[in-house]
C-alpha cells in the first residue's frame, strides 16, 4: 500500500511537471514555420506519450482494479445475491474476456447494453446498490471514485490484450450500430457540431489535443484504448460514459442521461468499427 501511495504521488508529480512543461514548450517554441501546415501530432502530445509510457509500467489504474475485484468477489447484496450471478454475456460470473464482447444484446433485459451499463445493472440487481445514488454521482471526481467505476475498471482489465469483438448478430445489435452511426453524424445545437465535426477527418486537433478520426477502424480503437482511464490531472478513473458525456458538452448539446440508449448506440458504432483490434486494458489519460 505504501509503495502504491508513493507511486501515485510520483504520478501526481509527473502530472504537474508535465503540465508546466507543456506550457513552457508552448510558449518558448519558435514561431510557426511561415504558417506551413502544422505537424499532425502536436509536440505536447508527443511529450505526453512519453510520460504515459513511463507511468504505464506501474499503472495507477491497478489500484481501482483491485478495489473493483474485491467488490465483485466479496460483496453480497441484501438478498444474499452476488456478482457471481451476473452474466456479462459469456455466462453467469464469467468476467474474463467479457469486456471486449460488449456492447451486446442481453435477452434478460431485451436490450443492447454497453459494459458500463451492464455492470451497473448487475450491481443494482445483485448487490443492492441504489440506482438513484449511482445517478447522483455517475463519474469520479477528486473527492470520490464511485464503486461502480472500480468494478468497471476490474472488468475491463480482465480483457487485457484480447481482441475487440462486439457482436453484430442480434437485430438489436445491428440496430444499435446503425443508430449510433447516425447519432455520430447528427449536426445540431448553437455551433452546428456533430461528433464528426471533431472526429471525422484524419490528423486534426483542437488546440494541442489530437482528435482521432473515429470513423476509421484503426482510429476508432481510441474509443476503447486506455478506457477506463486514470486521469493524470485530478488523479481518478474516468470511463467511456464520461468521455461521451464530456464530448456532448463540448458539442454544445444538452446532457445525455447516464447509461442511455443513445450512448450505448454510439459505443456500439465505435466498438464495432474497432472490432478485431487488441484492447490493452485500462490506461492513462491526461
Amino acid at each position: 500500500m505504501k509503495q502504491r501511495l508513493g507511486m501515485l504521488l510520483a504520478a501526481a508529480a509527473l502530472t504537474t511537471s508535465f503540465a508546466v512543461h507543456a506550457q513552457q514548450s508552448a510558449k518558448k517554441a519558435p514561431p510557426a514555420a511561415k504558417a506551413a501546415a502544422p505537424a499532425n501530432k502536436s509536440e505536447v502530445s508527443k511529450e505526453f506519450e512519453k510520460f504515459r509510457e513511463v507511468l504505464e509500467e506501474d499503472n495507477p489504474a491497478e489500484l481501482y482494479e483491485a478495489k473493483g475485484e474485491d467488490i465483485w468477489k466479496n460483496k453480497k447484496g441484501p438478498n444474499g445475491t452476488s456478482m457471481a450471478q451476473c452474466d456479462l454475456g459469456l455466462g453467469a460470473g464469467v468476467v474474463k474476456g467479457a469486456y471486449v464482447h460488449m456492447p451486446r444484446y442481453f435477452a434478460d433485459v431485451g436490450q443492447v447494453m454497453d459494459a458500463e451499463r451492464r455492470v451497473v445493472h448487475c450491481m443494482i440487481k445483485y448487490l443492492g446498490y441504489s440506482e438513484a445514488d449511482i445517478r447522483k454521482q455517475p463519474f469520479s471526481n477528486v473527492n470520490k471514485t464511485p464503486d461502480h467505476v472500480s468494478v468497471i475498471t476490474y472488468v475491463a482489465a480482465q480483457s487485457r490484450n484480447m481482441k475487440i469483438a462486439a457482436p453484430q448478430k442480434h437485430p438489436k445489435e445491428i440496430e444499435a450500430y446503425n443508430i449510433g452511426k447516425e447519432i455520430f453524424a447528427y449536426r445540431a445545437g448553437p455551433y452546428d457540431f456533430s461528433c464528426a465535426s471533431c472526429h471525422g477527418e484524419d490528423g486534426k486537433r483542437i488546440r494541442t489535443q489530437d482528435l482521432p478520426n473515429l470513423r476509421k477502424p484503426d482510429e476508432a480503437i481510441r474509443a476503447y484504448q486506455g478506457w477506463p482511464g486514470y486521469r493524470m490531472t485530478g488523479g481518478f478513473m474516468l470511463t467511456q460514459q464520461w468521455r461521451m458525456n464530456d464530448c456532448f458538452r463540448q458539442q454544445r448539446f444538452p446532457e445525455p442521461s447516464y447509461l442511455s440508449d443513445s450512448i450505448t448506440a454510439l459505443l456500439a458504432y465505435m466498438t464495432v468499427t474497432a472490432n478485431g483490434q487488441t484492447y490493452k486494458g485500462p490506461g492513462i489519460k491526461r
Partner: protein
Amino acid sequence: MNRKIIAGLAATLACSAVLADEIRNYRAEAVAMMKRDFKAKGIATTDRLHEDGVQAICNRSGDNPPKDIAARLEKDQLESVKYPADGKLMGDWKAGEKLAQSGRGMTWSDKAGVPGGGNCYNCHQISPTEMSFGTIGPSLYQFGKTRGNTPDMQKYVYGKIWNAKAYNLCSQMPRFGHVNALNEKQIKDLVALLLDPQSPVNSK
C-alpha cells in the same frame, strides 16, 4: 391485361413492403432516441436537438448538398448578416486576440449572460506566438498580409465570422453572430486581429 397490371402492382407493393421493412430510417430513429435521452442542463436546453434549415440540409446530404440548394441557402444566410450601422468593421486587435484565445461559451457549464469567447484557436493557427492551436480550420496566420484589408475583404471576414454558412453551407465553423455567441463589437475586434496591419497575425 387488367389482371397483368394488378399482378404487377401487387408485386410492386409486396416489394416495397419488404423494402420498407429493410431500409429503416435510422436517422429518424436516432433523432427520436436522442430526444428521449437528453435532458436540459444549465443553458443547454433540449430545443438544441432540433435541426434548423441549414443543419437539416447538411445532415441529410452528408454535408454535401446539391449545388443549387446550397447556393440558395447561402444567400439566405448572407442576407441575415447584420453589419454595423456605423460602417466600421475593424475594432481592436488586442481585444480580438483575447477573444480568439477563449474557448468558453454555449456549453452546459457556461453561465447564462456571461459573454463567451471566440474559440478561434481551437481550430485555427492565428498569431505566430500562440503555438497551442487546432487544425480543424485553415491557418489564418498572415491572413491580412496575403488577402489585403480592403473594405470588401473586411466585409467578407466580418460576414464569415457572423455566419460562416453564408459562404460555405456545411462549413464546420460555427455561426457566431447568427446564434448570438459573439456580438458586433467582438466580431469587429476579431476582424482587426486578422486584418489590421499592426496585428501580430500580419507581422513578418
